[in-house]
Structure formats: structure tokens, C-alpha cells
């Protein structure tokens, strides 16, 4: 009975994993057979690639800033929504709606809103006599601009938090109130322990998504640079402005499918896999801190 599952495991997991590892030690450009070059790809990655460092730092920024901010905002909104009795359904729908918009459409809309020359945000700022920034066209503000988009689209996590919060037993709050606990104490000693599995789930999925961050950054780069579509050659726009939106996976894509450095892209994938596995191991280990005593 386990035969089909084993075949699936080998064909769709083990083989790609091993093949990728094998290619990472080769010079492979698609057009000719892979040539074994030992650790050369890894040497290039860690000591010579001029853009991989920037790409890794940008990715780290999204992991360290975007994930916690999205989680904090979605938990905060979910908490507020649990207290809202009137028109609760309407509010929940309103906050969830942005998550239904396809990411590409959201980015295109956001870049338009924050267009420094003709966008509504800067036009509004101008009416108040303020000079709007360059937003997606400024290397210092491009990532925070994407952060705004990430927060706007937090509905997916918010719904999960909301469900978890509504499941927290009311009697625990009532008992805490009888003991004179304040809002902060109730949140820290009752809410957080009760929803800790959901917090862990959000953190794990959020970090994985941030490590693989691609679409939003790629579209923002392209559209902010004056292109309305992702067409052939658009990969050369990845990272605009000044590599500030270049992420590790985008650079891996460029190396593999634009520069035909398949062996090098495989080495990048191996490094990403190892980093993701290490981060997950640390997260899951630390998750013990959130476990309820005796649970």
C-alpha cells in the first residue's frame, strides 16, 4: 500500500533534491552536458557574486521586518475584531478583502497609488504643500513601500488569528478578571499561550514565504520602472531601484533562466534550502517557550 507513496516520494522529492545537489557541483548551461567543477559554484556564491549579498540582505529584511510586522498587525486587527459586536461580519470582510486580490494586481495598484509624479498619494500631499517622496523609486523607501502592501494584504493571517482568538475559553478570562488581572496580563498569560500554535504556524509559513519572496518585489520593480507588464527581458529590471528590491530567489531565477547558469542557480537553491531548514529548526526549538506548561 505504501508503494505509490514511495514512488511519489522518490520521483517528486528525493530525485529533484538529489539532482539539484548534483547540479550544484557542475557547470551546466542547458546547452551542453553538465561538467563537474567541485565547489566552484559555492566559491563564486560566497566570494565573487556581486549581487548575491545585496539579494540576501534584502531577503533578510523581509524576513526580519515584514514577517513580524504583518503578524503583529494582523493579530492586533484580529483582537479588535473579536471585541466588535456590531456589524462584526462587515468589518471582518473588509479587512479580509485585500487578501483576495491577486498579488500582481495589488502591486500594480500600489505602485500607481504611490507614483511620485502622478500618484494620488503624492498629489494629496501636494495639496497640503508637502513634497511627496519617490516611494518605490527610492532605494531607501522601496522596501517600506512593499511593507505597506504586505500589511494591507494581511487578511489571510488575520482570519487565522481571529479563529484562534475566538476559540480561547472565556472562563479563563473570567477567572483572571476575578483575580484582578488587567488587559495586558490577560493577553500575555491567557491569549498568547492559547494561540501559540497559531502564532508558530504564522511565523513558520511567514518566514518560508519571506525567504521565497519574489512576485511582489519583481512586479514592483518592473512597474515602478515604467513597464506595465512582465515581458521578455523584464528580468533585467529585477531589483529596481538600485537592487533594493532584488531578493535571493529573484537573483537565483536570473542566474538560472536568463544567464543560463543552471549549476550556479542549483547551488543557490541548496544554500537557500539549508538556511530555511536551519531557521525552521531554530523557530521550532524556540516554540517550546510558547507552549503551555503541562501541555
Amino acid at each position, binding site marked *: 500500500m505504501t508503494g505509490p507513496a514511495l514512488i511519489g516520494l522518490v520521483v517528486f522529492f528525493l530525485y529533484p533534491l538529489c539532482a539539484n545537489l*548534483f547540479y550544484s557541483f557542475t557547470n551546466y548551461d542547458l546547452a551542453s552536458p553538465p*561538467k563537474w567543477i567541485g565547489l566552484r559554484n559555492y566559491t563564486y556564491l560566497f566570494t565573487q557574486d556581486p549581487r548575491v549579498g545585496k539579494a540576501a540582505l534584502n531577503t533578510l529584511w523581509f524576513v526580519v521586518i515584514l514577517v513580524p510586522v504583518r503578524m503583529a498587525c494582523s493579530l492586533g486587527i484580529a483582537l479588535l475584531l473579536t471585541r466588535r459586536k456590531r456589524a462584526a461580519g462587515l468589518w471582518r470582510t473588509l479587512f479580509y478583502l485585500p487578501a483576495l486580490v491577486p498579488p500582481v494586481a495589488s502591486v500594480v495598484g500600489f505602485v500607481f497609488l504611490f507614483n511620485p509624479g502622478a500618484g494620488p498619494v503624492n498629489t494629496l500631499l501636494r495639496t497640503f504643500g508637502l513634497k511627496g517622496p519617490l516611494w518605490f523609486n527610492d532605494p531607501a523607501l522601496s522596501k517600506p513601500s512593499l511593507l505597506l502592501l504586505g500589511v494591507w494584504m494581511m487578511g489571510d493571517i488575520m482570519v487565522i488569528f481571529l479563529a484562534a482568538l475566538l476559540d480561547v475559553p472565556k472562563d479563563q478570562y473570567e477567572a483572571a478578571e476575578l483575580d484582578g488581572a488587567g488587559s495586558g496580563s490577560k493577553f500575555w498569560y491567557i491569549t498568547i499561550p492559547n494561540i501559540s500554535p497559531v502564532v508558530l504556524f504564522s511565523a513558520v509559513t511567514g518566514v518560508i514565504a519571506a525567504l521565497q519572496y519574489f512576485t511582489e518585489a519583481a512586479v514592483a520593480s518592473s512597474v515602478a520602472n515604467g513597464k506595465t507588464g512582465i515581458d521578455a527581458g523584464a528580468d533585467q529590471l529585477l531589483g529596481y531601484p538600485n537592487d533594493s528590491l532584488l531578493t535571493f530567489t529573484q537573483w537565483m531565477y536570473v542566474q538560472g533562466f536568463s544567464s543560463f547558469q543552471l549549476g550556479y542557480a542549483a547551488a543557490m537553491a541548496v544554500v537557500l534550502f539549508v538556511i530555511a531548514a536551519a531557521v525552521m529548526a531554530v523557530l521550532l526549538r524556540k516554540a517550546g517557550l510558547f507552549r503551555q506548561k503541562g501541555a
Partner: protein
Amino acid sequence: MKAAKHPPRPRRGWRTGVCIAVGALALSGCATGTDEPPSAAPPTHLSGTVQLWHHYSGREAAVVQSVVDDFEKKYPDISVDVHSAQQDTKITQVVSSGGDVDAMITNVNSTLGTACKTMADLAPYMKRDGVSLSDFQGIFAKATAFGGRRCSLPTTSDVYGLYFNKSLLARAGYTEPPRTLQQLEDMALKLTTYHKDGSIRTLGFNPLIGFQQNTSATLGHAAKAGWTKDGDSAVGSSRQWRALMSWQQKFVRKIGYNKLKTFTAGLGDEWSADNAFQAGRIAMALDGEWRVAFIQEQAKHLRYGTAPFPALAGSGQRYGGGFVSAADIGVNKRSSHKEAAWALVKYLTTDTPAAVKLANGIKNIPTLKSAATSPALDAPAPYRTFIDASKDPASDTSPVTEIGSTLTATMDDFWTGYQQGSGGGLADGLKKVDEDIDNALGLRRAK
């Protein structure tokens, strides 16, 4: 009670690992075929189905299909299956994985350095059938070979030049377009107008790298700035690059980087009717010959002219040429219909009526000399500028290398930072570009 059995140790795990590694090697396959010589004489009868893959889509794909239909009429026993709208990377992947491809059209500058290995050597076919490289305009014959292998021939080309708005120039008192970059800058500054708040209303010329067709490849040509020497990067030791980039950065500073960025971000899409030049928001622009067709379609009332792009004085560049690039077509080395595929390649590249039909339809510049001078070529005056430039000895392209567009992308990346003052010193920056390009080439050439 029996002690629980320990699970068996995976002593044979290493064998599984070896099997998987061997399997990976086997599946990686990628035999590239061989350059078997063609028969001594051309076949008297050709038949079979040729699979043609190319990157054209929409209207342009329809033009290619129409020329292919003509070919099928000429060779009634050959049928051609056309796979249009395929990106170069996809075509290379399909060919490399043994897919059913007989002939393929790709892009010279970004793909040929890799794709050439998968293509058959056309030299013996050309020698046998009397096809001469001197049949082609300018540098296109040279640009469509790589590593000493004649793996492809040019079909159509893109040529870059200067577009200028006659009305805006006349209003500022100019009757002629600029011939040097300094004249371009002087005119552009005079043509630039501002709103009351200091923001740009109309721009004379947008000097920002990254704006539409402003790239290191297209602008580098204006200074005759070289890319490689003996196969390695040579930008760091180039006086021309330093002169060109210094000029550009000073030009940007005179208007203001932030002002230019704000203005640029508010412009319409390059490929729509809102194009900044077509909409009269920019007086002069560096663009390809295709803009003539766009203007005919989208901005019929625009009074404009075209000219070769200005040259940087003292750089050794001669006014009259321009940056060029080409689409190349070759035969898959593993094709089982090589003769039929070669017949198609020969038809698309050396048959004058076919080349004219392609150029007229796609609105690119023909690479075949007889097509470029054909009276059947639809060549309005603005388009004629690019035909003349394509054969000018001063026209050139960026070199075909194993790293494709990484060559120019590395320079673009540095220049983009440099133009706003964050790129550090120019000489040191260019040396770093040299190093980065050489490292990328080194990885690609690693054995």
C-alpha cells in the same frame, strides 16, 4: 515480553544515494549532437516537417507565419510547424532537453553565447550552396557567429538612433538635431521647461540610465566604448567609458536626480500611445527603428524627425552609426530534418522578397543587403535613417559572450548607482565591474 526490535539500520542507504546520483546524471542527458557534414550536393528534393521556434508574438508572429506560408508554397513537400511567442530561454531549454526543434530564431546579444552550442555549423551548407557572408549588411554576419562557429545567420535587426520633436525644437530655435553629446545636453537643457513648483513639465532629453532604451549598450556606442579585450572585460581601462559616464552624471546633476526620477515615474508606458516622446513630454529620445511604426499608428500628427545618435566628441566615435542588435536563426544540431531546416533558414535570411516582406511587416531593419536596397522595402524618411545607420561602419553591437546579458547588466547596475552619486569613484567602480564580469566569465568557463 519481547524487547522491541530496533529498526534496521539503513546500511544500504549509500547504494540508494549512488543510484539516485547515477539516475540524475543519466537524466541530465543533454547530448548536444554532432556537426555532421552535409551531403556534397544539395538534395534534389526536400520533404518533411520542420519545427520552427521563435520569439515573435501577435502581429509580428502573423508576419513570420505569412513568410513561412510562402516558403511552403515554394517547397510543397515541406511543412513548417511554427511555435511562436517562445522566449529565448524556453527555446534553449527545449533544444537542450532534446525537444522537437529543427530551426530556431533567438536574440544575438542575450542568447547566442549559449544557444550556439546547440546549433549546427552552417559554414559547410553555405559553402555548398554559395551563400556568402558579404550578402549581409554591416556587422550582422560577424555578430551571428560565436566561438569561431557559424551557428546562425541574421534575419532582421534593431538599429538605435535619435528621435526629435520638430515642433519643440523649432520653438527653441533649433532646426537641426544635435551631432555631439555636448550639443545634445545644451539643447536638452534649453528645451526643458518647469512647473512653478520646480518640477519638470517637458524634458529635453532624459539622461537617466534605465529609462526606456537608455542602457550601457546603447549609450556606450556613442563613445565607442569597448567591452572586451581578448575575451575578458576591458571596461576598467577604457577612457571612453569614463568620459561618457562622467558626462552623463554631470548632465543628471544639472537637472537634478530626484526631479528626473519624479518626472520619469509619472510618464506613460513605453509601448503605449502614452509614450513620453509620442506624447510630446520629451523632446528628444534614444530609441529603436520600431518607434517609426508606433508613431504611424499611435501619434499620426506628431511632427518628428530621426537622426543618428550623437557621438561623444574626442572619443573616436564617428557620427552616423548606431547601436544595433539582431535576431539570428539557426538549425538544431540534433535535427533529423537538417536539409529542410537549412532550406528554411536560407529562405528567411537570403531570399530578398522574403527578407523585404519580413522587414515591412515586423518593421525592423533588413540585414540582407539586397533587401535593404530593394525598391519594395517600405522605407519612409524617418525609417531610412536606420537603414543607413545599419550599414554604417561606425555601427556596432555589444559582444556575444558566454554570459549573455550579464555583461551589460553588470555595467547597468553600477551605472545606475553611479548616476545618483552612490556608486563611489568612477575608476574604482569600473575596475570592480571588470572584476565582476571576469568572475562571471570565469565561472562559465570553469572546467
